[in-house]
C-alpha cells in the first residue's frame, strides 16, 4: 500500500509536468485550430532562457520565469502574425509551417550550443521535500502547483474577462464573432501569445531538473499530444486532467509492469480514446475534425 501511494504521488507530479506543457498547446489547438508542432521548441526556448538567465546573471529560475515567459509569449505572437496568419486559408500548410519552425528552432539552438548539453546547478534542482516517507522534488511540486493555478486562472480568464469571452466566441464560431465586432486576428495573436508564454513558463520551471539540449522539446511533445487528445481538444480542464491521467498511468505502468513500456501504455490509451471518444474526455464534439472540415 505504501509503495502504491508513492507511485501515485510520483504520477501526479509527472502529470503536473505534462499538464503544464500541454495547456498552451491545447489553448492554441482549441482556438486557432492548428496543431502547433513547434510547441515543444517553445518549451525548449523557455529552458534555454532559464539557463542563460542563471548562467549570465545568476538569476533563480523562479524569478527569471517572469522575464522569460513573456519573451517566449512575444515569440508566439510573432509566429502567429508572420507564419500562421498569412496561411490562414491553408490549414494544412499551417501544420507544415509549424513543423518547419520546429526544425528551424532546433537547429538555431544547435548552432548556439554546438551540441553541448547545459544544466543549471545550485540548490533549486536538488531541494527535496520530505513528507512522511515520501521524498518529493521541490521543482516537481512547484510545477504541479503552477499547472493547477494556471488552469484555474485560465478558466477564470476565459469565463469572466472580455478578452476571454472574445476568445471563446471565436472558438465557437469565427464568422459570427467577426460579425459581432470581435477582432478575430487580434484574438488569435493573443491566444498564440498566451499559449507560447505558457510553454515558455513550463520550460523555465523545468530547467533545474533536466539536461538542456536542442532536442529536449521532443521529449515532451509526444506526451503533450496524447494529453491533448485524451483530455479533449480545446478544453483547458481537459489538458490539466489529461496530464494527470497520463502521468499516473505512466507511473503505474512503469513501476508495476516495466519501465521500458511506460510510453507504450499511454499510446495504447491514446488509441483507445481516439476510437471510443475522439473528442476526448472533456472536449467539444467535432473538434477532432480540425483541418478536415471547413472552420466556419
Amino acid at each position: 500500500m505504501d509503495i502504491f501511494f508513492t507511485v501515485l504521488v510520483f504520477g501526479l507530479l509527472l502529470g503536473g509536468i505534462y499538464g503544464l506543457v500541454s495547456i498552451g498547446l491545447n489553448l492554441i489547438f482549441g482556438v486557432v485550430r492548428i496543431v502547433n508542432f513547434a510547441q515543444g521548441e517553445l518549451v525548449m526556448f523557455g529552458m534555454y532562457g532559464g539557463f542563460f538567465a542563471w548562467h549570465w546573471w545568476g538569476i533563480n529560475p523562479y524569478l527569471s520565469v517572469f522575464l522569460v515567459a513573456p519573451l517566449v509569449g512575444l515569440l508566439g505572437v510573432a509566429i502567429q502574425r508572420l507564419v500562421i496568419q498569412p496561411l490562414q486559408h491553408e490549414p494544412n500548410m499551417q501544420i507544415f509551417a509549424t513543423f518547419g519552425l520546429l526544425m528551424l528552432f532546433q537547429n538555431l539552438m544547435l548552432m548556439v550550443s554546438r551540441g553541448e548539453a547545459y544544466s543549471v546547478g545550485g540548490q533549486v534542482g536538488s531541494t527535496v521535500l520530505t513528507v512522511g516517507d515520501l521524498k518529493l522534488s521541490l521543482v516537481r511540486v512547484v510545477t504541479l502547483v503552477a499547472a493547477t493555478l494556471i488552469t484555474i486562472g485560465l478558466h477564470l480568464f476565459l469565463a469572466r474577462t472580455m478578452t476571454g469571452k472574445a476568445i471563446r466566441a471565436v472558438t465557437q464560431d469565427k464568422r459570427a464573432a467577426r460579425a459581432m465586432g470581435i477582432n478575430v486576428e487580434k484574438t488569435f495573436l493573443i491566444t498564440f501569445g498566451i499559449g507560447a508564454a505558457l510553454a515558455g513558463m513550463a520550460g523555465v520551471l523545468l530547467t533545474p531538473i533536466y539536461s538542456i539540449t536542442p532536442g529536449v522539446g521532443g521529449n515532451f511533445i509526444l506526451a503533450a499530444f496524447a494529453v491533448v487528445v485524451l483530455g479533449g481538444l480545446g478544453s483547458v480542464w481537459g489538458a490539466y486532467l489529461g496530464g494527470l491521467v497520463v502521468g499516473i498511468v505512466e507511473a503505474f505502468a512503469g513501476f508495476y509492469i516495466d519501465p521500458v513500456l511506460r510510453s507504450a501504455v499511454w499510446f495504447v490509451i491514446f488509441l483507445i480514446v481516439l476510437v471510443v471518444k475522439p473528442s476526448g474526455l472533456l472536449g467539444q464534439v467535432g473538434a477532432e475534425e480540425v483541418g478536415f472540415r471547413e472552420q466556419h
Partner: protein
Amino acid sequence: MRALKSWLAGLVALATLALAPAAQAQAPIKVGALNPYSGPLALYGTEVTRGYELAVDRLNASGGVLGRRFELIRGDVTSPQQGIATVEQLVTRDKVDLFVGTYISAIALTASDAAQRYNKLYWETNALAAQLTERGLPNFVRAGPDGPAFAAMSAAAVRELIAPALKKDMRGLTVWIESEDSIYGTQIAQVQRRILETFGAKIVGFGAHSARTVDLNDTVLRIRQANPDVLVQTGYVPDGNLLLRTLRDQGVKPGAILYVGTGDTPETLQALGEKYMDGILIVGYPRNDITEAFGPGAKAYLEAYRAKYKADPIAPQGMNAYTGFLILAETIKAANSIEPDKIQAAAAKLDKPEHSYPSGHGVKFDKNFQNLRAGLTVSQWQGGKLATVYPKLAVTPGVTLKPLARP
C-alpha cells in the same frame, strides 16, 4: 570569346599534362574523415577528427607513409542515410583513397557499406557496435575497442576495484544493470550481465529506459526495492544525468555506481554538483592523466592538442582516434598499399603488445578484424575532477581510490 576560352582551355590542359608526372609522385593519401560536424553530436564528432588531424600532423612531419603525405578531407555525416551520400561525394568528387571514422555506430554501419561498393578501406577508430566487425565486410577494420570491450572492462572494475572496496565477496555481490534501450545500451548491458554472472555476481535487476525519458522515478523505486551493492548504467548524457538526479532525490544509495561511456563531462558535474559526483566510477577511453607506461605518448598528445587548438581536450574520444590513425599508418606501411584486401592481410599479421600507443592500445586483430588489445580505463570523480584509477599500470603514483559511497 569562344576562341579565347578554348585557347585558355588548351593552355590549362598543356600545363596539367606538364605538371602531371610531378604531381603523381607526391600524390597525397586522401583520407575521408566521416563524423557528425553538425547536429547534436557535432562537439564529439569534431573532437574525434581533431585526433585524426593531430595524427596527420605527426605523420606528415616525418614524410608520411610510403613516400606520401596524408590529406584529411572532412565528410559531415549526421544520419545513416547521409553517410551513403557523403561517401559517394567524397569518392567521386574529392577522390579520397580511404575512410576513417566514426563517432556513431549507426553511421559507421551504412557508410562502411557504401565505401565497400567503391572498394575503399573503412578504418574504424571509435564506433562501438559489435555488429560492425561481426558482419565480416572485406573493407572494414576496427582499431579501437568495441562494445563488448567496454562491458568486459566494467565487469573487471566490479571485480577488481569495487568488490574489494566494499569488502564484499564477488560471489553473491548484488548488481543492478541499467541501460538505455537502443542497440548501444542493450548490447553492452547483455555482455555485462553474462560476464558478471560468470564471476559469481547476483544480477538483482536488469532495467532499460528510453534515453529521452522525462522521468525515471519508477526505475529508481525498483532499484531501491532491490537494494543492490553496485549500480551499473550504460547510456547517454541526458538519461545518465536524470538517473543520478533521481537517485539523489529519492535517497537511494547503492554501495557503488559505475557509469559506462558517459558521466564524465563538465555538464554532468554542473548538474549534480561535486559533492554528489565524487566517488562515482566511469569506464571510458583512456584520459590525459594516464601514465606513460600505460600509454606512451599520451603527454605528447596533450601538448600537441593544446598547441594546435589552444584548449584542453574535450573528450577522451580524440586520443583514441589519434591512436587508431597511427595504427592505420603502420598497417599501410606493412601492406605497402591502401587497398582493402592488402590492408586486411597485413593487419592479420600485426602483433604489437599492449601499451604500445598513447591510448594504451596494442595491436592484434581477430578474424573479424577487431583489435583485441584496444585500451580502456576506469576513472573516478575526485574533488570535481576525473582521475584514472584502473588498471593499476595507468594510475599516476599517489592517486588512490576514494570512497565509493553516496553522500
